[in-house]
């Protein structure tokens, strides 16, 4: 099929789709703001967004979610919420909600019955699988789902469809940290509960804009500060977090290995390392020591752009502290050498022996609501429940026994999502089922992603709003929001918490697990999918994860409510859970942690004459991930209506561009037009664009899809770009707003 032709596109009528399904702005409870509500029930649950998983109470009136009330008794946030959390309930009865199954006919979505839609999905999947083999269908899932659903998605792909191709959107999130943690510690979980943060004298925070991306985590950071603690912040931008840091290392994007090696060099020189810890509890020190010998502060300074004096000061502050923690997030993970970045910071932790004790530790701050739980129970391409490996015969045997599946029917490992999309372009994967993601915003190189979707023979999507990605689907099945189903999530600390159901899905929308199970039934795989409710899925998950690293066997929904969350591993019902890891041993067979000798390698693309700037991407506090939920909420959109490009004043002066002016940002893969925000808070050689938008506003039109060789994470955080001035009459963009005229005399 000549998919290049726009007329043949799967989205031939974009304007109509936007008119029908939004995003439209909505900013009030479904029946308006009322003071005289009679609340039927107050449902304690958690926020649907980031991995802090703040507790919140939803107010329900007449089977409608009409507001929230702070949940002061939940220990992580004690009532606190960010603006996304405050407005989260407004999505539940949003006018854009998908209320009926939709089938695309002649380029337009038409409502259909559940039977019609599900039968079409199943007949297409069967047809493709009989023609092209089981592996011709891909399943792409997400980590904003409950753990029960993520377990179900992995099982559905392997036991329901029999395909090897399943992956999840954590691949675009923290998977570099997951791989590095497995390599260094033999397990993939943050090592300490956040209660440890206030006990640390020094926090080293790398590539984590805590202020905007984990607002409520700042509670712990400021408690630490009130206790007299100090922050070292590593970030190319002076974020609100970096602004308050005692020391800000404003490095060039993608040079973390050089920085961490430079710091380790100083620690060794000044004998600030813990020899006895290194000798008794770690392996691989000598190689690492040899490698970092070359990274003197001067060398590291040249590579990173951070003054040598600051590198030395950071190493001394970190090395001399009695207690310290290292925290990091996407800033160091979204790189083609993301795993190495993480490992080089872990080397600092191991060299100082600062782990496994109160106030001494390490952790990645997972991004998505269930980013932790979503990477534990088998929806990753190479993984089975309980963080088991699909390539390990013992692990395969255990899971097949639990599922009662003949072992030869369990597929082998698949590939990461970016590689899955390459296989779609190659025609190897012909059909796709996706849930809980928005590929047209979140995958790198949007134009290639579009080609992948256009080339599919059949694409079915489960979602509760029409995302930029689901516009390309042939069938869209209306699913549920977080308040319409129950199950567990694991927050960034590894604390398993319980999401409770507040009200039924609206219209004909259904719980996600019901939809997936219904497809499995119609595929003739009823035997493996006999769940009557999410609790039954959880009970099977407990058994499937038993004995694995992520052991949930001892966790029950009741225990979660009783203890305000349970930290895994929790191997038996009388086990209280494990808030702090590595107190006695690490999870490698010999009980030791591993150093990794890491050499600095630059990003895949570095600035040159044609593309002289480093483009990095990230997030704003008002939007969540691909924005499919938050870009519909009036309050949030009003605060940040569109992406912009941050440029340093000196760079702006050279380019002769003004604040507020629209410019064209160009990379080797694509281009986009963004308004300029001239700020002194960014490096002169770096520009920044937030990523939450799709189509022409997507920064991912520009980003580099090069993958980390181990974690397969794309390099979102560094590519080469240039800025072109547009000489058009579109300028300036903000017009009236820039004049700041007062509205006090008229309305």
């Amino acid at each position, binding site marked *: 099929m000549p998919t290049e032709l726009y007329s043949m596109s799967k989205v031939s009528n974009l304007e109509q789709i936007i008119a029908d399904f939004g995003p439209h702005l909505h900013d009030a409870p479904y029946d308006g703001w009322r003071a005289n509500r009679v609340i039927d029930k107050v449902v304690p649950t958690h926020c649907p967004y980031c991995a802090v998983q703040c507790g919140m109470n939803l107010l329900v009136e007449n089977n409608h979610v009409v507001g929230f009330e702070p949940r002061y008794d939940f220990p992580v946030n004690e009532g*606190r919420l960010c603006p996304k959390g405050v407005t989260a309930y407004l999505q539940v009865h949003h006018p854009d909600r998908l209320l009926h199954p939709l089938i695309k006919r002649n380029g337009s979505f038409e409502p259909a019955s559940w039977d019609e839609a599900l039968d079409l999905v199943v007949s297409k999947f069967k047809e493709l699988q009989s023609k092209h083999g089981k592996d011709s269908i891909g399943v792409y899932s997400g980590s904003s789902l409950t753990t029960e659903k993520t377990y179900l998605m992995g099982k559905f792909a392997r036991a329901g469809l029999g395909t090897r191709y399943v992956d999840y959107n954590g691949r675009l999130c923290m998977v570099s940290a997951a791989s590095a943690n497995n390599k260094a510690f033999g397990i993939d979980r943050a090592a300490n509960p956040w209660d440890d943060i206030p006990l640390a004298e020094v926090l080293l925070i790398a590539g984590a804009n805590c*202020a905007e991306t984990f607002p409520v985590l700042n509670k712990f950071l400021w408690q630490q500060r009130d206790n007299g603690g100090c922050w070292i912040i590593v970030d190319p931008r002076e974020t609100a977090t970096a602004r308050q840091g005692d020391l800000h290392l404003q490095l060039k994007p993608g040079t973390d290995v050089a920085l961490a090696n430079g710091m380790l060099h100083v620690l060794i020189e000044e004998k600030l390392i813990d020899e006895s810890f290194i000798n008794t509890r770690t392996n691989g020190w000598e190689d690492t020591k040899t490698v970092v010998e070359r990274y003197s502060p001067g060398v590291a300074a040249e590579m990173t752009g951070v003054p040598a004096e600051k590198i030395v000061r950071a190493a001394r502050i970190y090395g001399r502290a009695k207690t310290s923690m290292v925290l990091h997030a996407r800033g160091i993970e979204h790189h083609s050498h993301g795993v190495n970045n993480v490992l080089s910071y872990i080397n600092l932790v191991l060299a100082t022996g600062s782990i496994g004790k109160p106030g001494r530790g390490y952790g990645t701050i997972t991004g998505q609501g269930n980013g932790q739980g979503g990477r534990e129970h088998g929806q990753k391409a190479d993984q089975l429940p309980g963080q088991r490996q699909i390539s390990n015969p013992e692990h395969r045997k255990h899971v097949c026994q639990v599922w009662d599946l003949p072992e030869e029917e369990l597929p082998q490992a698949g590939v990461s999502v970016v590689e899955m999309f390459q296989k779609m372009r190659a025609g190897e994967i012909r059909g796709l089922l996706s849930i809980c993601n928005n590929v047209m915003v979140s995958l790198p190189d949007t134009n290639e992603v579009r080609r992948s979707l256009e080339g599919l023979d059949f694409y079915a999507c489960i979602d509760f709003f029409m995302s930029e990605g689901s516009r390309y689907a042939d069938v869209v099945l209306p699913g549920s929001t977080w308040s319409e189903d129950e199950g567990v999530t694991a927050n960034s600390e590894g604390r398993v918490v319980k999401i409770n159901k507040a009200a039924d899905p609206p219209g004909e929308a259904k719980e996600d697990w019901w939809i997936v199970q219904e497809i499995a039934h119609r595929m003739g795989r009823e035997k493996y999918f006999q769940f009557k409710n999410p609790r039954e899925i959880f009970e099977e998950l407990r058994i499937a994860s038993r004995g694995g690293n992520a052991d949930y066997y001892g966790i029950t929904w009741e225990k979660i409510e009783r203890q305000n969350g349970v930290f895994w591993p929790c191997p038996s019902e009388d086990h209280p859970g494990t808030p702090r890891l590595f107190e006695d041993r690490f999870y490698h067979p010999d009980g030791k942690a591993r150093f990794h000798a890491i050499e600095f390698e630059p990003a895949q693309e570095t600035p040159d004459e044609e593309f002289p700037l480093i483009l990095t991407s990230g997030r704003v506090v*008002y939007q969540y991930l691909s924005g499919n939920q938050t870009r519909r909420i009036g309050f949030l959109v009003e605060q940040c209506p569109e992406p912009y490009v941050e440029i340093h004043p000196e760079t702006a002066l050279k380019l002769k561009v003004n604040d507020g002016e629209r410019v064209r940002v160009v990379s080797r893969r694509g281009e986009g037009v963004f308004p300029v925000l001239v700020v002194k808070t960014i490096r002169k050689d770096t520009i920044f664009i937030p990523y939450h938008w799709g189509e022409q506003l997507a920064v991912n039109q520009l980003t580099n899809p090069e993958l980390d060789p181990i974690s397969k994470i794309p390099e979102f955080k560094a590519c080469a770009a240039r800025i072109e001035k547009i000489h058009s009459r579109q300028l300036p963009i903000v017009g009236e707003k820039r004049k*700041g005229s007062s509205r006090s005399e008229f309305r």
Partner: protein
Amino acid sequence: MFIDPQRCIGCRACVAACRECATHKGYSMIYVDYLDRSETTATMPTVCMHCVEPTCALVCPADAIKTTDEGVVLSALKPRCLDCRNCVNACPFGVPKYNTEMHLQMKCDMCFDRSSEGLKPMCASVCPTGAITFGKYQDIVPLRRTKPVNAHVFGNQKVETKVYLMLPTDADAVEVDGCGVFEGRVMPEQHPGTESWIDLQVEQTDKSNEF
């Protein structure tokens, strides 16, 4: 109530949450502004400072603005409010707004329906960092390394407030020099180049005197 500007991350959770208090009817009465986004990410929340001698109440010809025994300055009483906007123009902090639809002045009442029942106001409940904290002086101040200040000097007017600003330890009072406007100095909008468009955009949404 305690306001600590250095903790403010500009997330505006307080602005969103203010609307949720049942008596606020979807209107927010708290403002968060960038100081100057081109220079810094610093932001500042503005709530009603609940003055000991509230200027808004002093200038009200109808005596519509009442103060509770605890010192909370309430919104104008609906039957009394004359739509005169004296309070809107007189408040040295620029807090009260005039609601043209309801013909009523509205301002932060410290979520009177919540605080009178022992619950924290919405803004202080949700504030992620503790930039806005609600509690007793003796409970909050010993925990912090900043100094509580509640004296504000606006030219010749000195105002004492129930709300404290948490400032560096050498601060005594907050002095504002008449905003420069009356002494013929340049107002910010006359050279927009110094401010970022985001400031102005936010100002437009947050700072107009009406709902």
